[in-house]
């Protein structure tokens, strides 16, 4: 279809039935239509019969509209929310094994400190760091560590949640009659308007 909008990265949260085959239905939807998933993470929600997926997809407005509609069309999909349009927090965790020569060990620790990364494993020749953050932060630490020689890198894929006291997807879960836990009151209003760690 004719479309003039620019491709953009979208973060989409999807609540699905926690059943076998669901992941392949979602993955199949993307492969069958030639859409590319940049990252995908899945985990159980408070309700063990419901899983939550966070998808990162690049596409123009038309592609994203189709992605959302096609996701809705899958029988096992309960709710789809494009978080990109609203204020939300995104995080990704990486584990990175980096060469740590005696001359560079201190510098690596300093970088880790600046990024609030943790050292989770040490050998005489390497450090393994755990870092969490949004995409730009994670990219930044990887770029800073690259000159030391990265041996291995693993990322979880993005997870995301809407900011604010209202829990958009939680309410959907509650409607399903499963989730009963009270929503804690927001004590730190600053968090609502963009607290960054």
């Amino acid at each position, binding site marked *: *279809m*004719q479309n003039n909008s620019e491709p953009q990265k979208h973060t989409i949260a999807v609540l699905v039935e926690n059943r076998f085959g669901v992941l392949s239905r979602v993955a199949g939807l993307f492969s069958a239509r030639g859409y590319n998933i940049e990252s995908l993470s899945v985990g159980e929600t408070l309700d063990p019969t419901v899983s939550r997926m966070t998808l990162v997809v690049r596409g123009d407005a038309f592609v994203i509209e189709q992605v959302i509609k096609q996701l809705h*069309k899958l029988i*096992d999909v309960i709710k789809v929310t494009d978080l990109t349009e609203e204020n939300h927090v995104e995080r990704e965790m990486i584990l990175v094994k980096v060469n740590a020569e005696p001359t560079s060990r201190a510098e690596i620790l300093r970088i880790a400190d600046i990024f609030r990364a943790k050292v989770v494993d040490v050998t005489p020749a390497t450090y393994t760091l755990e870092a969490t953050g949004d995409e730009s932060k994670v990219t930044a630490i990887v770029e800073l560590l690259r000159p030391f020689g990265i041996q291995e890198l693993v990322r979880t894929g993005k997870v995301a949640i809407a900011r604010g006291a209202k829990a958009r997807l939680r309410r959907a879960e509650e409607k399903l009659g499963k989730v009963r836990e009270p929503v804690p009151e927001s004590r730190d209003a600053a968090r609502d308007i963009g607290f960054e760690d």
Partner: protein
Amino acid sequence: MKLTGARIFLECLKREGVDVLFGLPGGAVLPIYDALYDFAGLRHILVRQEAAAGHAAEGYARTTGKVGVALVTSGPAATNLVTALQDAYMDSIPIVAFTGQVPTHLIGNDAFQEADNVGITRPCTKHNFLVKDGKDLGSTIKEAFYLAATGRPGPVHVDLPKDVLVKEWPFEYPDKIHLRSYNPTYDGHPGQIKKAARAILKAKRPVLYVGGGVISSDASEEVRRLAEMTQTPVTTTLMGLGAFPSDHPLSLEMLGMHGTYYANMAVHQSDCLIAVGARFDDRVTGKVEMFAPNAEIIHIDIDPSSISKNIQVHIPIVGDCRRVLARLIKEIEAETQQGVPSLAREARKQWHDQIARWKAEFPLRYDWDDEVIKPQYVIQEISNLTRGEALIVTGVGQHQMWAAQYYRFKHPRAWCTSGGLGTMGYGLPTAMGVQAAHPDKLVVNIDGDGSFQMNSQELATVYESRLPVKTVIINNGCHGMVRQWQEIIYKERYCSIDLSSGPDFVKLAEAYGCVGIRATKPSEVVPALEKAFATPGPIVVDMVVDREENVFPMVPAGGANKDMILERPGKEAKAKAAKSQTGF
């Protein structure tokens, strides 16, 4: 109450109101066939190849509106069935297909006749299930029928491991089910409907573009009322044929690649296109930028993902075609209580005059020949002799397009053709399913010689199961549609199209116990058809037709609909068509 899984399966079908089952037994489903041995109230029709079971279920479903059912075994049977599933998926036909599976403890072991059935059918079904625990059998079957028939209908596949069928389980069949993740929208948004009503009333050159969704939601009465009260001409897609009578003064007949000149021109020039249960398929739109370029487009469809998929729509309405149209008619009635403004009346009159001119200028036509049978003539005579009251099934190819163009459709649910997938071999097995659902009606399978040969083994089924299907083979001795493209677009370099070596279809019919009739001259067409329709039992008529006849109008793939090829093109026109398609 405890029953074997196989017995539970049959009890569930009975409770769903299934009266006919199309299938073929094998190792993994033997427990079901054993239970079927003394199970009353369920007719089983033994097909000769599994795809035929799926197509027969489609034919049953299309003509009755009920869910069609197929049952086959594991592995190769399931993979054979895939074509029918994809066919039903693309044409939104409600069927439930059951396949056997190796016992649960062997799944994944590369066991004999094992295939990853649910993995294979996942992209070609609306939904599918693997029943791992017999306790879920009843509720799964209930869900399968519910999913197939509701919302946008489609095929659902259920995979049944052998041990689940053998063991005994408590039998409970739920009366109702609720799927929290599945809530189709049936009622259209009132605001959008009001908007649509106003757009239709102020339009000067409106066109209704009606698809298969009108058939599946039984909305043809509403379409007719809307068309008549607003004096809007109606064109139907291949899937929508029968939704509006071909002979109605407002009918433009079919649009698209092989649609009529007047349908394509009317859509091209319309200022308001009302798409109902149609999905802007590429065979309908041609080049999308040139499809109804000046029209405000209203799209009524139950599937939100069909809306603005191929064409940007101005007034989308998600909902069931029948309910939305009923509401739309009410809105229009309310808006026109003070009468239609004379301005609009005048504009409509001009629009109808324009369409009448197109109809007079380029009607559907072919050249008569005294010696050679013209395929279009055969279709016209089938239409005359049956008075448009027969249930018509087709294969895929030129004969299918001629049937769509020249048969005079009167009723919905009387036409089965493979629209989206274009499955050759669809004709005979689908006709079996139609005949099984309507034992006393005349079922005519208009087939091609190429298409028919892809499932001709089902002559054994129609003979054995006493299904008096009348097959009329439009025999041009080649893959005609491919020949047509090679002639017009590939510079007459005919490659791998010749089927003139046979078989002798009369002898083939007789070998299966059916009656074979042949006609080779135009004067023999009517007597042959009269004999076929009057003779009881399954018949094959071999109509030896003009090999070189082409389907016109024709829009080369990806071209604009207004640039139709209306008759056999000359050298220059062919060169132009070739260049547009192949680049040289």
